[in-house]
């Protein structure tokens, strides 16, 4: 049974050897020329400004949660769509109920202003 996993093990060893090898090669061939500019935070070639711990609107969090919610909804729909014909009418009704419940949630979020950015 474990033999089935042999390719996985080979892949794992290869990946590690590749990454480790590259790191070793750069350490061996590359020349270290330290300069103050190199030690700075890289920000698209610009002078870094401000603090990494800046505060941002908590609204991002709400948007992210809502995004994940509807993302997962899409995932369930894909699973149903792959077998839509076999599941037939009862499958269609079930997925319709699922969508209806989510639609109520979406309507609720919308009417409560969860989708408005400036509030």
């Amino acid at each position, binding site marked *: 049974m474990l033999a089935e996993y042999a390719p996985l093990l080979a892949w794992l060893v290869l990946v590690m050897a590749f990454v480790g090898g590259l790191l070793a090669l750069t350490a061996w061939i590359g020349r270290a020329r330290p300069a103050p500019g190199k030690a700075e935070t890289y920000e698209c070639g610009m002078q870094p400004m401000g603090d990494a711990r800046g505060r941002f609107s908590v609204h991002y969090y709400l948007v992210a949660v809502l995004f994940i919610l509807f993302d997962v909804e899409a995932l369930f729909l894909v699973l149903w769509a792959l077998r839509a014909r076999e599941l037939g009418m*009862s*499958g269609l009704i*079930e997925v319709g109920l699922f969508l209806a419940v989510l639609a*109520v*949630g979406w*309507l*609720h979020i919308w*009417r*409560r202003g969860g989708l408005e950015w400036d509030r």
Partner: protein
Amino acid sequence: MPSALTAADWMLAAPLLWLTGAGVLILLIDALRPARLAEAVVALLGLTGAGWFVLPLLRESVSGFAAGGGAVPMLVSTPGLAALALLCLGSAFVAGALGLRRLVEYEGGRHGTAFWTLLLFCPAGMLLTLWSNHMATLFLGIETLSLPLYVLAALQRNDEHSVEAGLKYFLLGAFASGFLGFGMALVYAATGRMDAAAGQEAALGPMAAVGLGMLLIGLLFKAAIAPFHLWAADVYQGAPTPVTALMAAGTKAAAVAALFRWSPGIELLPPTAWAMLGTLTLVVGNLSALNQANLKRMLALSGVAHAGILLYALAANAAGLRTGGSGGEYADGPFQSLSFYLLAYGFASLAAFGALELLERHSGGRSDDDALRGMARRHPLPGAVLCVALLSLAGFPFTAGFLAKYFVFVELIRVGMTGWALAGILLTLLAFGYYLKALVNLFMREPGPQRPAMVPADAFAAAVLLVPAILSVVFGVWPAPLRL
């Protein structure tokens, strides 16, 4: 292929569908035509309607949702579990009645919809947990009951204690859910089974053993059993008191009953291990409760101690299974004592936290001994309810709490664990120390200066509270109807 639902499936699904349907309806009302009264009516009707659907389950055992048409049902209800389901619905009803003033009108009523919706989803999860006979339904049930509670605990978002309670409960609860889920995955990987009896396979490898252990940790956390009880005091204290009542009565019943139903699968643990765990929980809960100067915190820690006594019922069950050897078909005694205890504890804690909520309205929301000094004399009705509740929790004769302890210890002695029963009884006496201390503080001290009322007490909440208090006395002298 999806197969048609049987009559048994519908019997079990009806209360769940009714609850979640009412929850979705409330969201729809708020989206289309916000009306606060309509939302409250739909929520309370949702809870009572679900209770009506549970009633027929009190008469017979029902198994439904046999996985993939196979032999193993995903949901199993017995009369005892149906009684606990009614307790869960009732505690949500009490929490709703108590929250009408404090939570629904918080911040100008902005969170009323959230409160009612979550109050309907939470007991749906409790019912699922109670009836779960399959890892999928157990996990779904525990998550469905926990997620609304995390939010409900933090509902008073401008109160730092409430937010702290929500965050602590969420972080630790998510961690426990991780244990639960990973344990289930390991058991499935080792045995290929996901039903409650998976752990009863003859030869359990190390992977299944680790998985069952992790599953056990997840359940012990939800039931607040030492050494996984540390969240209970902070969460119970910080959460708004109506929510605490729901957690104490409903969550405890669902989690401990699930622990009982899944414990035969955890054959790793001999009866003495359950008894040791129970004694540890009893000692830890009692000793920490003795030292509290806050009634809410004291009740939370005493809840931990009660869970310890409940573990004795599990010990008796495990011992019976070993000697009986009939794989899960042991006499109903231990389960009867467990469900009676959970009902008695549920009534008493609903009454206690409910009366405390009414008193808190006059103490500026505070529940420490100083603020509650002499309050029962000034407010006799909540005071009387609190008195009955505390006596029942302590196990005073002629209350349901006394008989509950009696039944558990009788089961323990019946399987020959007399020493453990003796230790438990002595430790139970310790509990009188803090319950009577609280009563002395409430009744026998001069009340402090009256503080302005935070929110007016309402007659509806007080009337609802009388029900669990009266039941605590009635079933203390007439226990037969609850021996399900």
